[in-house]
């Protein structure tokens, strides 16, 4: 008798705090991950082992798939300024409401004269099938609408950067970069037409958007 019983420490750990933290993080990642909208024109890009990442801002993307050309700008303010310039160039007027809708538009693939019609549709009806693509040819006139879009977007970027010059801690991000996001199976003539359109306005540097190749 009289043998002291060794007290055993409890093996269970309180996980409440850990659970709280992990779900907070989970909520954060879920919300940030779904902020990206699904793309209208589905492009299956080729793969490369290039280490560079595509910039998040100051970028115009020309998407090509199924022979259709779409254009999109990353910055909503640049979108608005671009549309103002395009509206003058092609003598098409847009209402304030349409400007607001255009600011939300990630990418589009219609001729300028059909743009109002596209903007009048609700978001989920702006599918690929009703958008014939932006007209492009080898000229530098108004008939080459991609030429105008890229040019006006570049001007708008400069304009936008200049308007922000006075702001505190502002660093000039430089001119707009152009990226070509072409489908892996897209034939070269379509790509060549875009490259020539860019070269005609001395936009000699651009990027091809690719996926990341795992093996070499």
């Amino acid at each position: 008798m009289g043998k002291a019983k060794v007290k055993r420490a409890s093996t269970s750990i309180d996980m409440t705090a850990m659970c709280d933290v992990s779900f907070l993080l989970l909520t954060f990642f879920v919300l940030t991950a779904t902020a990206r909208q699904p793309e209208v024109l589905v492009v299956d890009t080729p793969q490369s082992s290039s280490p560079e990442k595509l910039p998040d801002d100051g970028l115009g993307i020309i998407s090509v798939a199924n022979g259709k050309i779409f254009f999109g700008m990353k910055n909503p303010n640049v979108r608005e300024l671009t549309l103002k310039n395009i509206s003058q160039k092609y003598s098409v007027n847009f209402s304030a409401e349409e400007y607001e809708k255009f600011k939300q538009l990630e990418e589009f693939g219609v001729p300028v004269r059909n743009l109002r019609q596209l903007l009048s549709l609700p978001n989920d009806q702006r599918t690929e099938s009703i958008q014939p693509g932006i007209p492009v040819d080898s000229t530098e006139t108004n008939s080459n609408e991609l030429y105008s879009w890229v040019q006006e977007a570049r001007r708008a970027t400069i304009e936008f950067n200049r308007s922000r010059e006075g702001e505190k801690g502002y660093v000039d991000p430089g001119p707009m970069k152009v990226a070509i996001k072409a489908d892996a199976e897209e034939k070269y003539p379509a790509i060549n037409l875009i490259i020539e359109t860019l070269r005609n306005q001395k936009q000699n540097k651009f990027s091809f958007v690719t996926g990341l190749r795992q093996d070499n």
Partner: protein
Amino acid sequence: MAELNQDSGKGNKGGKVRAKKAGGKVDLTAMVDLAFLLITFFMLTTSLNTPQAMDVAMPDKNKMDQNDNLEIADNRSITLLLGSDNKISWYYGQLAKPIYPPTTIDYGKEGIRQVLLRMQKEVPQRAGGKDLIVVIRPSEKSVQRNLVDVLDEMRIVDVKRYMISKINSDEIEVLKSEGLFND
């Protein structure tokens, strides 16, 4: 502590036998496991989502003279003609009197890369120390993947000088004769 306190104080009016209190602790291990699994998943997908950019620089266009072509030494340049069916035809020197006549090869590690590595050593010996120039000529039957693959090889092999230029009719004939001009 994670305890479930079942409030049973008000329920015993009629002198009923009190129900035994359930154990108050809930095991959260599985829940935490699941949460961390999902966190890992979302973290990886968000950061891997940004696509890669492959920078390309083209020469300035001379609008005055469309036929203003840069002369380069024959023994420095190899030309890659991108044909259909994911194949390349390449030659060394000028097409009219090539140092190596057009040969068909594949893309990738075993094909084009071996050629580039070999020529990178051979060209400085022949051209008196000057390095290799690669001329890439995509035909209209080649696809975007071919162009990106070739540019990627340039980066991997570290070819300093390369250019994308226009294919001419003689070279299309070469591709046709090698059966690389199919739809």
